[in-house]
Structures are given as structure tokens and as C-alpha cells.
């Protein structure tokens, strides 16, 4: 099961470049979007936390459980073979989607968080030593901070943070200064979950490699908005979540370069990750199973594969253009409202509009919008250092998926005006 994935065409979307993206048709594929919320049409603006699921994902999971379900990798009977084929088929789809060189490089995990923890423990704890440095940035989600702090407390590595500016962009000169021969890993987000900032992944990877450090990309918010090509990005690890990519919860992938994964010992022991076990000694299984101890989330992985099929059937250039258009439209509408302040105004953004209304706490904004059927996130978005930097306790965050349309942004702007009216600010 270590077959090489077929190299996808050089430009997968080239044949679809001129195909328009029909957001209304896409919306019809997501059953929940047709459900009323508080008696009003649902305006779902929390896809950065978790995205809604198209019918094909639900059907794929249902079919697996109804027709093809058994545990994988173990049994000789037909049903188990079918389940194994479906599970491994999903791995292959994901490998092709991200342009992995080899299917073995795709490790199924529970989500981005687990993927980063895997690298911290299997790679960091075994291959780093006290005094080595890991560089992160001021944009991080807690899941790209805490695993490294835990590693620091375990083996004495040093955690260095590269700062951001008032627009929410990385200060590249400062980042360059922070990358030194002591740096062993640069771990950073593809897209900031709290601000929407898109980072220059390829450039940072080159800077890391120039000093012999590795580059890990937290792709939780990047994978849903761009079609990551791990070879072009030039990173060494890319972690992302299935549930933010229109797939089921409990799914995610750590992609890593095969030679790095080979030299990393397993991090969890159990079934499936072994070749042979005696009470004296265990021989570990090959990639990717070495890192997948225990029964995996089989149906969820199959659902994730169905989500990937769904995404691969869309014209990606047009999807990105559509998402950018909706983001700019929403930003312009909000900026037009007196007293609204956008938090994070990077030149390149994706998927996220964080904002404040002068005189109204984000939680009150969230409750009033909820009454209008508008679901946004309020709080620190698991990025407290970002909140501290902007000296706000919390923000209101509207986040977009490929099904978000201009009408959603117009509803949001109307809702924000209603908030102001209600609180008389």
C-alpha cells in the first residue's frame, strides 16, 4: 500500500479556468444552508471554526456504514477489504489533492491540532536538544503555540516569536532576523484564523531551509481557501483539518516529507502501527501506519475523501476569485458603517473578517446577529496573543466558505447596523 500517487496534471484547473463558479448551485449541495434559523434564512459565517458539509459527504459516510463497513487492515473477509479500499482510497485522493509525492506521506490524524502535536512529539522530542530554537509567529492559533511550549518544558528548546505589524502582517525583516543557525523549525500559519492574513509560505520556507531548519505550515485555514500544493509551497510538514474542508469532524492530515517521517519514531503505540510484537521487542509498521495507532476514524476518512472529490470537481481559480470577491464586498460594506473597526488589514487576506463595533462588546454583537439568523464567532478565536497584540479582549469574526455569497455579506452589514441601532451607538 505504498504505491506512488499519479502526478496530477501540471495545472489541474487549467481546463476549467474559464468555467464560472456558480455559488447558488454550490449552496444547493449543502442541505443545512436551506434550514431556517430563528425563523430567518440561515446566514452561516463561521466556516473558519468548522465548515458545513455537502450532501455527497453525508452520502459517502452513510453508504460506508450501510454497505461496506468493517474494521480496516486486519481481516481477510470481503467486507473488511471493501472498507480498507474505501479508507485507503480517501488517503490517495487527499495525496493527489495536495500533490504529495507519495501516498505514504499522508498521515490521518484527528485534525490540525493533532498533526502539530505529532510533529512536536515524534520529531521534536526525539530529534531536538536543549537550546535548539523553534520560531513561531504573532499570528498563531493556540494549537501552534502550546505543543511547542510543552516540548520546551520537556526538553528545554527555546521558543521564539516573530512579530506582526498593526495590519496583522508578519514583519519579514524581523522574521529574517529571528531565523538563525540555532533555528531548527519555523512553524507558521498559511492563513491566520483570527485575522485572515495570508502568509508568504514559499518565501518563509526558503528562509528556513537556508539555515537548515525545517518548515511546518499550519494549514487549518489555508487548505479550505487555496488548493495547497505541498511541493510548490516547499514546506516539510503541512497539517490541516477535514472538518474545515467540508468533511467530517475527527479528520485531518499531517503531510510530511517521507524521509523526515521515516526517521521519526512513532508517538503513540498500539494496534495497526506495529509489524510484530513480543514482550521483549516491537517492530514498527511502515509509513503511514507507523503513526496511526488504533482503529482510525474510518467512515470519517471516507467522508473526507468525498469532500476532496467534491472540491476537486470545482473550478478552483474561479472559487478563489469568488471567495475574494465576497471577502472584499463584506469588508467594504462593514467599513462603510461608522464605528466599525476591522481588526487585521493585511494586503492579502482569505476567509476572515474580524471586526469590532465601538461601544458594543463582541458577545452582544453575536447575540443580536443570532436573532437575525446570522451565525458569527465572537471571542478570542483560540488566538489570545493576537487579541493581546491588538489590545482587544475579543473580536467578532465573520468567516467565509465557498458557499458564502454576496447576499450573506449584505445580511451581515444590515445586522451590524441593527446592532448599532439597538445599542444606540
Amino acid at each position: 500500500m505504498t504505491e506512488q500517487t499519479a502526478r496530477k496534471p501540471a495545472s489541474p484547473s487549467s481546463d476549467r479556468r474559464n468555467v464560472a463558479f456558480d455559488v447558488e448551485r454550490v449552496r444547493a449541495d449543502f442541505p443545512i444552508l436551506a434550514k431556517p434559523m430563528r425563523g430567518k434564512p440561515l446566514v452561516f459565517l463561521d466556516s473558519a471554526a468548522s465548515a458545513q458539509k455537502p450532501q455527497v459527504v453525508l452520502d459517502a459516510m452513510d453508504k460506508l456504514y450501510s454497505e461496506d463497513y468493517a474494521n480496516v487492515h486486519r481481516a481477510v473477509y470481503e467486507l473488511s477489504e471493501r472498507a480498507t479500499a474505501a479508507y485507503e482510497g480517501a488517503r490517495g485522493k487527499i495525496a493527489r489533492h495536495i500533490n504529495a509525492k507519495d501516498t505514504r506521506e499522508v498521515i490521518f490524524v484527528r485534525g490540525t491540532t493533532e498533526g502539530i502535536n505529532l510533529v512536536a512529539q515524534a520529531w521534536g522530542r526525539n530529534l531536538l536538544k536543549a537550546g535548539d530554537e523553534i520560531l513561531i509567529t504573532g499570528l498563531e492559533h493556540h494549537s501552534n503555540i502550546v505543543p511547542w511550549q510543552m516540548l520546551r518544558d520537556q526538553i528545554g528548546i527555546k521558543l521564539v516569536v516573530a512579530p506582526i505589524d498593526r495590519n496583522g502582517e508578519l514583519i519579514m525583516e524581523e522574521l529574517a532576523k529571528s531565523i538563525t543557525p540555532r533555528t531548527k523549525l519555523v512553524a507558521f500559519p498559511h492563513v491566520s484564523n483570527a485575522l485572515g492574513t495570508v502568509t508568504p509560505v514559499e518565501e518563509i520556507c526558503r528562509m528556513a531551509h537556508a539555515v537548515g531548519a525545517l518548515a511546518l505550515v499550519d494549514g487549518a485555514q489555508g487548505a479550505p481557501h487555496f488548493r495547497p500544493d505541498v511541493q510548490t509551497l516547499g514546506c516539510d510538514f503541512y497539517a490541516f483539518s477535514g472538518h474545515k474542508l467540508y468533511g467530517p469532524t475527527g479528520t485531518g492530515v499531517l503531510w510530511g516529507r517521507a524521509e523526515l517521517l521515516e526517521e521519526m519514531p512513532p508517538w503513540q503505540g498500539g494496534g495497526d502501527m506495529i509489524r510484530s510484537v513480543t514482550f521483549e521487542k516491537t517492530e514498527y509498521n511502515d509509513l503511514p501506519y507507523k503513526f496511526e495507532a488504533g482503529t482510525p476514524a474510518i467512515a470519517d476518512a471516507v467522508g473526507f475523501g468525498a469532500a476532496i472529490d467534491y472540491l476537486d470537481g470545482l473550478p478552483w481559480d474561479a472559487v478563489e476569485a469568488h471567495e475574494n470577491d465576497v471577502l472584499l464586498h463584506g469588508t467594504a460594506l462593514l467599513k462603510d458603517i461608522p464605528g466599525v473597526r476591522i481588526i487585521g488589514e493585511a494586503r492579502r487576506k482569505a476567509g476572515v473578517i474580524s471586526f469590532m463595533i465601538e461601544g458594543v462588546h463582541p458577545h452582544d454583537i453575536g447575540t443580536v446577529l443570532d436573532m437575525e439568523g446570522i451565525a458569527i464567532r465572537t471571542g478570542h478565536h483560540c488566538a489570545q496573543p493576537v487579541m493581546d497584540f491588538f489590545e482587544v479582549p475579543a473580536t467578532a469574526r465573520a468567516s467565509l466558505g465557498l458557499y458564502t455569497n454576496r447576499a450573506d455579506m449584505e445580511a451581515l452589514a444590515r445586522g451590524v447596523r441593527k446592532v448599532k441601532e439597538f445599542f444606540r451607538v
Partner: protein
Amino acid sequence: MSDLRELYQEVILDHSRRPRNFGACPHCNRDAKGHNPLCGDRISVQLDVEGDTIKDAHFQGQGCAISMASASLMTEMVKGKTVAEAKILFDSFHNLVTGGEANGVDLDKLEVLAGVRDYPVRVKCATLAWHTLAAALENSHMPVVTE
């Protein structure tokens, strides 16, 4: 908007905009801090307790309209009460906002926060000040955390 008016009654809007007993209290002899990490609300409660009586109550901090109004109303209500009375009031208030049984205690203007019971995620906003008050009465310097 009618559901909203149920939650955000005029008294709540008023107290959130112009919180009473807001600011430092140099003569107070008890204090505690509270934090709701979910919404980032931070509050501190200062009390002047003489013998068994709460002579004065102040608060500082920032938070949503519900938490600010609740803290403001609380400081008004506990002034002049004994420690035991304040604790009973907290119990009754807690029942009010979580939909528990009323226990016959007159909650007076705290009743305006009854709408919170229909918004489970907002209960912590309404009770943060009260949990912090309880810690101050215990003279506990462990920050109170609600989430």
C-alpha cells in the same frame, strides 16, 4: 427585536452604559478577580466588609452588556446586606438565570436579568460578577474563572 428586548431590558442597557459603583475603592478591605476566558471578560470586585455587613461594593473591568449590567446591579443590591444575606441572594439569582426554582427571596431589580435563562451561553456573563463577589467574601485571592 422583541426577543432582544426580553434579554436586553432597558435597565440592563442603562446599567451597561452607565455602570454604578464602577471604579477603584480605596477604603475597601476585600477584593477578588474574575475572568471569563471564553469572552475575555475581566472583572474585579472590591468590598468594604465591617463585622458581618457589606458596607460598600465596587467593581471594575470590562465585558459585555449582560456582565457589566449584572455587576452594576449586584453592587447596588448587596450594599447594606449581611454576608449571609448576600450569599442567599447569589443562590436565588443563580436560580433565576439558570431557570431553577425560585426560593421566595425578593430579587427586586435583578429580575431584569431573567431573560438570560433562555440563552445558556450567556449565563456565565450574568454570573461572573457574583462568583467574583463570593470569592471576595471568602477573601480568596485565587482568580475566579468561568467558562
